[in-house]
């Protein structure tokens, strides 16, 4: 085969361009980039493989397991279990346990009225569980003081107080 220079020259330019493009790509494209899982495929599964493990290692904050609190705070735990508030998690009002008791040694206690009103503001909507929760009008029922002044959230009924 006899290729003339007018074929060889542009071909050479193209080869050099392609080679430089590929070598630049080597540096730009991050490690692990490609089809993450062949079951998912190219269309939805194209990305950086290491990212999945980065997400798996994200810091967990909530335990959402009242058994975790039970041993040290047995009095509060048992008190909670005797009333309708037993369905509420400790961490719903006390915030994420994180690595408690080592870090943080003390959890926050959210005592604001809003913590009560988020369920107990009466919204009698048919078709929602909200209608079955006993409500209180915050503008009429002791508007100036916090609910926790009289009601113990662990034992909300007023008996024996």
């Amino acid at each position, binding site marked *: 085969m006899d290729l003339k220079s007018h074929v060889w020259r542009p071909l050479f330019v193209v080869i050099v361009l392609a080679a430089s493009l590929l070598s630049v790509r080597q540096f730009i494209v*991050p490690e692990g*980039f490609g089809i*993450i*899982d062949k*079951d*998912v495929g190219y*269309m*939805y*599964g*194209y*990305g*950086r493989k290491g*990212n*999945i493990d980065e*997400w*798996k*290692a*994200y*810091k*967990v*904050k*909530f335990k*959402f397991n009242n058994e975790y609190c039970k041993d040290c705070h047995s009095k509060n735990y048992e008190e909670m279990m005797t009333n309708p508030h037993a*369905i*509420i*998690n400790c*961490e*719903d009002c006390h*915030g*994420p346990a994180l690595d408690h008791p080592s870090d943080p040694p003390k959890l926050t206690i959210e005592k604001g009225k*809003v913590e009560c*009103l*988020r*369920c107990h*503001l*009466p*919204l*009698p*909507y*048919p*078709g*929602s*569980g*909200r209608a079955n*929760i006993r409500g209180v009008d915050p503008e009429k029922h002791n508007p100036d003081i916090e609910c926790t002044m009289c009601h113990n959230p662990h034992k909300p009924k007023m008996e024996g107080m």
Partner: protein
Amino acid sequence: MITRRDFLKTTVKGIAGLALPVTAIEMVSPKMLLAAKGDRPKWGFIVDTYKCVGCGLCVKACKQENEIPFNANVTRTWIERYILMKDGKLFADTPKGSVAMNGFTTNKIDLGEKHHGETLYQEIKSVDIEKAFFVPKLCNQCANPPCVQVCPVGATYKTSDGVILIDRTWCIGCGYCVMGCPYGVRFFHPILKVVDKCNFCYHRISNGMKTACVGACPFGARMIGNLNDPNDRVSKIISTERVGVVKSEYGTKPQVFYIGLDKEVR
């Protein structure tokens, strides 16, 4: 005229051709397929709108667990309130900004309009309500995710267990996916300057825990489960009870299923 040689050749070819499909086709039962996939989960979610009381504890827990700014008007999950009046009028609102975590603490409805910088509210009388309910929303983790397809840099993708993740180191914040999502679950993270959305608390579900919103809900309105496990509570409900998905007409195949969905829910 066919020669003896040609006749034999064609016959051998024909027999070989007929024999091939018989050996190539093997009957595969769905159980075998499931076994071939191993014990890999496929995450699915159920929202029971009858049980939701609109307390917002899920929103609060999600923001704390996933470090989403409290005061910015961004959240990975939220609750919508739908009120259909007896005169046929429909109202829908959701607590915004810093009060998004507090649930619904007023019977006034946010009209979503502003007048002289003040948000307009309308008083709703209980007697005028025909039906009203709460609908928690989160990322649907679509089987056909439009948000993934539009990403120009490959920063968002679907994992084999069915969750759509965002690569925070690789997202350029162009916002195509925010526009592409028909459910509006994606938002721009004001601190990290990348797009963010619910990922079913991937760090929790991958380590044997439930999502923060499921854990926080006192009423059991949210459930997460493994759709590959036929004995899982969530897959049992999906296969035996009446469930619906939001905006099925988009063909996105959502993996979040709703109990008690209504035509008003958008």
